[in-house]
């Protein structure tokens, strides 16, 4: 699957993992549409299906969605980046500090923040490709490092608020009928999709994910390409930090805590193999959507509201969904490798 070869017939389209996931998403949505109710601020009962709620889901999923986009190339190379959530926090603080304490114009602060994100990604990249350390260990380290830095920069107390309306526009208003950040997200999604599916970069990511040795012997610049995915991840995490700040109107050190796990879940749920090589951006987007709808939908189920357990429930169901998806996608592989194991030729 996911080789996006142009000659795929209808059968391979129907049987694709993404199609399956889309079906799950639709079922999920209609379930909540049918059973979900909620009370809005004015005390009026509204259903799950309202346009406002859809936009709400979209708004809330942009940051995790961006991180999931950032992680897709990383996981395609059989790597992992646990530090993106912490980096989101660090970048939010850097942005706030540059603007408030550095007195920079907002656009300039934003650009510098993006640079800082890429730089932080570069740190991961350097440690992984130059020192040949495993990505899991490196990013576990920078996971703590970035968060710690963010807290140190604010002494654990300062929160930057009172951003001007022009900036909040990116997180709280609509543009051309959609939440503004949705457009940014769409742009990022298209960019990553093109990179992964339409350029030789994506091809190299897959080759590295399947067989780093094979890629090296083929003369692919393995170190460069591997580094690139982490730099890119840093850059996108910084963009997510900007959107986060604009949505909440505040930049704080604990921004994005735990987001990396949701993002990884979304990527894996989207059919990208944690062992590298296989996966698609469209799968990741569906994974993000499936998790966002689940989370938001559960919050408007009457049962869940009565129990006041939306967070817990969404955690449980996301986990269950992930395990199911894994079982569904891995089982055939396991079976066939068991059968193929002592193969020759």
């Amino acid at each position, binding site marked *: 699957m996911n080789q996006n*070869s142009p000659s795929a017939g209808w059968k391979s389209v129907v049987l694709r993992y993404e199609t399956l996931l889309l079906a799950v998403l639709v079922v999920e949505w209609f379930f909540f549409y049918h059973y979900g109710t909620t009370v809005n601020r004015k005390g009026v009962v509204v259903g799950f299906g309202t346009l406002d709620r859809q936009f709400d889901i979209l708004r809330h999923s942009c940051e995790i969605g961006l991180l999931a986009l950032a992680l897709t190339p990383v996981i395609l190379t059989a790597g992992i980046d646990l530090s993106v959530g912490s980096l989101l926090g660090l970048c939010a603080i850097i942005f706030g500090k540059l603007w408030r304490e550095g007195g920079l114009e907002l656009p300039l602060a934003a650009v510098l923040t993006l640079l800082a994100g890429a730089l932080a990604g570069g740190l991961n990249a350097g440690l992984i490709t130059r020192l040949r350390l495993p990505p899991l260990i490196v990013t576990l380290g920078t996971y703590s490092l970035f968060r710690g830095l963010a807290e140190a920069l604010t002494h654990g107390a300062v929160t930057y608020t009172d951003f001007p309306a022009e900036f909040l526009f990116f997180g709280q208003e609509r543009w051309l009928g959609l939440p503004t950040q949705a457009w940014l997200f769409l742009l990022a999604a298209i960019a990553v999709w093109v990179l992964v599916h339409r350029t030789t970069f994506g091809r190299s990511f897959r080759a590295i994910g399947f067989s780093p040795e*094979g890629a090296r012997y083929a003369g692919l*610049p393995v170190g460069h390409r591997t580094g690139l995915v982490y730099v890119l991840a840093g850059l996108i995490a910084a963009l997510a930090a900007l959107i986060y700040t604009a949505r909440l109107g505040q930049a704080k050190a604990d921004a994005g805590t735990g987001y990396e796990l949701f993002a990884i879940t979304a990527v894996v749920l989207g059919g990208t193999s944690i062992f590298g090589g296989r996966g698609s951006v469209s799968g990741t987007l569906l994974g993000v959507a499936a998790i966002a709808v689940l989370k938001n939908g559960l919050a408007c189920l009457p049962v869940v509201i009565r129990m006041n357990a939306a967070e817990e429930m969404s955690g449980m169901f996301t986990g269950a969904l992930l395990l199911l998806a894994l079982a569904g996608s891995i089982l055939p592989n396991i079976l066939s490798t068991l059968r193929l194991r002592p*193969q*020759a030729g």
Partner: protein
Amino acid sequence: MRHETAAPLLTLAGIKKSYGAVRALQGVDFELRAGEVHALLGENGAGKSTLINVITGARTPDAGTMTLAGRPLGELTPAVTRALGIACVHQQPALFADLTVAENIGLRLEGGGPWRWVDWRRRGQEAEQLLRRVGADFPANRTVRELSMPEQQLVEIACVLGSGARIIIMDEPTASLTHREQARLFTVVRELRAAGTGVIYISHRLEEIFSLADRVTVLRDGESVGTQAVRDITEAGLIKLMVGREVAQLYPPAESAPGETVLELKGVGCRRAGVRDVSFAVRAGEIFGLAGLVGAGRTELARTLFGLTPADAGEIFLQGARIHPRSASEAVALGVAYVPEDRRRHGVVLEMPIAHNVTMAIHPRVFPGAWLRFGAEEGLACQAIRDLAVKCSGPDAPGSSLSGGNQQKVSLARWLATKPKLLILDEPTQGVDVGAKSEIHRIIRRLAKEGLAVIMISSDLPEVLGMSDRIGVMRGGTLSAILPGGSDPHTVMAAALGQAK
């Protein structure tokens, strides 16, 4: 002779096996007697390995019956066949890379449950003994990961010898072995035959069939086209049976005098790779053969030139400019191409389609501006499939679905497409059938004529002798002699063994 009267040890009748739409075996009959060496022959993808996998229980046939010493066999698994006394040297070594040689051998041979007592000293001694018997000169406590392909192959053979099986199957055991190891193997196989073991022997080197086998069965497109006594058939007849047409087995001659010097090495060494003080030059249009024993440092030298283990001594000049490739991607950018020895680990990315594999080393040329062009890619892949007669279901077929020889062809196709200045071939035709082999030889000659310098490493001595304009002989990590093309095999062997004439 005694073979004719011997009772059949193993009989297969009407064996069928398909992989999805690919019909790998379509009703094969086969019979193995005790005390015979029975060769299995056929083009790449004819179904030889599949048949072996059916016999060892690694694959379940779709139809057909098997009888072992008169007793019908039911459903087979590798564990069952092992207990029945069937052992196999697979085409590709399947050893645990992170265990030592002794541990690998022990795991294969020692019986008993998971809680048995392991006598490490005895295990080590037995492993050493088996290694000596197959002529390996590395210690049993080496980790398999550190071994080269032919060394791993020797470990596989040692495992099988130690098993004491009554049916021994060898799927291209000599594909990467040099003359000395091959001769050793033949002695051992003859001993086994004399002791009444039935041996199934697969090889694409016909001279081996004639010197070793008693009978031969030829497979074509998954069907057996006949079993004959080897003494009743000629080489040409065998090829005709196999390919269905005549194949000229002549090596294409060099047509023009070599041009300017393309590659020059001056005292090149790499301590990590065990290569030291190598000096020679290769000119445009010239094929420089590298001969030597397993472990002589031929592959190591190639890896050094390709930047995988960068040189730490001496100088390398490519078209007069001094180069020092520190990685494979640098070497490729400089115009060096290397077809590696281990096709499954290095030559093809097994999970990727043929098309992706073929274009992998020429991304900048096929995909200008880094944009994938699926049409162009498919065209190139189809071209390669046609040129090298790759048997596959199409350019989208993953590398893992190909037979060993066809994987080798894909690995070759990738590098032939790079249009390099220097082409290094490490066992370019290992596991490739006679028809494709002569086609590959023609292609190599043609490329040389277009002005490439070619370095060809091959353990197939006739191939080195037939193809090379000059032959460098390596021993102990250094170049010990340079002989003219067309030297006789004994001179080359003597140089490889370090015997002064």
